[in-house]
């Protein structure tokens, strides 16, 4: 286990007066999908570029599988692949030509590169587009050829920089399936995204980055519990009982209760604070008290906070970010 694919200490990159990456510490375990989450301009791409040896860090240190990304850049390049936000393939060339070109550059013989290229195109559902120029591909197809190019030689570490930005839901799901297949074969994936949903679906650990700094790091569960436990949604049968229900919930949960536009619905946060009870137990007691007060409850749901809520809570600066 304990093998680290990436380790960084105080990684810094400065562009002019902008500290794009401002002291990032990461420890990415090998064989997992690690999500780097952050709004536009948070420094995600800059960090990835340093790790992929495209940019030289201005401070700190980073190693990939124990090799320094500056001093031992060539060794790092032998083990990583990068798929950027924009297509990292040549748009003037056809799908086959792109893959054969990269295959040759990775040391395959000409027939070997052709064979591998045909197999990959087939596996990525691109056989029919093999002889078309990439500039005629749809967004989803571009992203697929791009990832295909990244796994020509199965990399030990794959950087996916916002792989689904701008894709329709179907293409996005296809990319997710590909990522899962890649990681199932033992490749470590560093995934940057601004979609919480994506991190939630794919990543086992997540670092939230904003303004060049890691502002939270952990498993999905840890991140979620760090900003409170969730909320209860209650639906009553009789709208006239709502004021009473509001008082009961406010007392039972020691939290503010929100009145929804729907006249029979209420929502209250359960933060699990000031008590030893778990959020679910707290909610159960509140439900019992509602029943005790003679209020008819038709529906009662305890929701986990979404990563969206976590993200907004963490990156919120007077409501300006995200």
């Amino acid at each position, binding site marked *: 286990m304990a093998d680290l694919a990436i380790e960084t200490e105080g990684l810094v990159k400065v562009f002019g007066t902008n500290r794009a990456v401002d002291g990032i510490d990461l420890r990415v375990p090998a064989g997992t999908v690690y999500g780097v989450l952050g709004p536009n301009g948070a420094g995600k791409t800059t960090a990835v570029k340093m790790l992929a040896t495209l940019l030289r860090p201005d401070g700190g240190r980073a190693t990939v599988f124990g090799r320094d990304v500056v001093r031992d850049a060539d060794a790092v390049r032998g083990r990583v692949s990068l798929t950027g936000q924009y297509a990292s393939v040549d748009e003037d060339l056809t799908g086959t*030509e792109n893959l054969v070109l990269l295959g040759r*550059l*990775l040391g395959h013989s000409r027939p070997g590169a052709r064979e*591998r290229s045909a*197999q990959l195109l087939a596996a*990525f559902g691109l056989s029919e587009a093999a002889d078309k120029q990439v500039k005629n591909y749809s967004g*989803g197809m571009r992203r697929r050829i791009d990832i295909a190019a990244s796994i020509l*030689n199965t990399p030990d570490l794959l950087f996916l920089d916002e792989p689904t930005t701008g894709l329709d839901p179907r293409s996005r799901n296809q990319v997710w399936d590909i990522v899962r*297949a890649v990681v199932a074969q033992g490749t470590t994936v560093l995934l940057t995204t601004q979609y919480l949903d994506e991190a939630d679906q794919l990543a086992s650990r997540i670092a939230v980055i904003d303004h060049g700094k890691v502002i939270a790091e952990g498993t999905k569960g840890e991140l979620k519990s760090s900003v409170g436990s969730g909320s209860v949604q209650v639906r009553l049968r009789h709208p006239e009982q709502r004021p009473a229900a509001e008082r009961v919930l406010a007392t039972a949960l020691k939290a503010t209760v929100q009145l929804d536009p729907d006249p029979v619905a209420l929502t209250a946060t359960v933060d699990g604070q000031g008590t030893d009870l778990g959020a679910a137990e707290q909610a159960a007691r509140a439900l019992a008290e509602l029943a005790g007060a003679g209020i008819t409850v038709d529906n009662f749901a305890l929701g986990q906070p979404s990563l969206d809520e976590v993200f907004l809570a963490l990156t919120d600066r007077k409501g300006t970010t995200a």
Partner: protein
Amino acid sequence: MSTVAPGKDSRQTDALAFEAPRAEELAALLVGQERPPRPGALSASLTFGWRAMLKIKHVPEQLFDVTAFPIMMVLMYTYLFGGALAGSVSAYIQFLLPGILVMSVVMITMYTGVSVNTDIEKGVFDRFRTLPIWRPAPMVGYLLGDVVRYLIASAVMLTVGMIIGYRPDGGVTGVLLGVALLMVFSFAFSWIWTMFGLMLRSEKSVMGVSMMVIFPLTFLSNVFVDPKTMPGWLQAFVNNSPVTHLATAVRELMAGNWPAADIAWSLGWSAVFVLVFGAVTMRLYNRR
């Protein structure tokens, strides 16, 4: 893990866009794959040269500057200056053709900078730069592809020249030697443009700077007239210009002579260009 069954649907909505990736096939491709040994410097450079050829295949319009432009240069200068400078067109073409060939090809080299500048902004260069290959290979490949363009330009110009009346005394050997020397020089000289292509921010500025370099360098030479008619200070520049040495060497080779000194100067300058501007180019390339 969800997988999508391959070929489950025969209804063709948009077969291309909706053809789904196949996870099992993909998984099979990823396991047990051995990495082949890294390609050598030459192999990697030639592969990038092949990329340049593919680009010509897909965007043949880019050959305009190595076909129409050289024809225009030959015709324009021959008929413009022929009568005044040498008494007749057929007399002038004997003197002019090797020189105008050198001038045109050296001028065409400047498009290298523009293509490097536009290409490097594209994502595909990030991929090249993360490959474990000999670092200068993408640039060398570029220039190898350009040598093919220069060869096309040379063939076009020699053909037009022959039609007008150019008759090289050096025969096929002399012409081929002259073209070979021109290719070596152009390859080396192009490193100036790769440097500017990487250094400057926009295509326009690359174009502007290139003009500033190329016009004085090619016109202030012995391509059109004998430098003896020029003022002394200009002669000093012209007689030592690399383009003059190259033009003389090519002219003499094609005339069947062996201009050892000018060949040596041309090759010497070529070495200097590669060493100086090649080094600066690679420094810029690695720093990006």
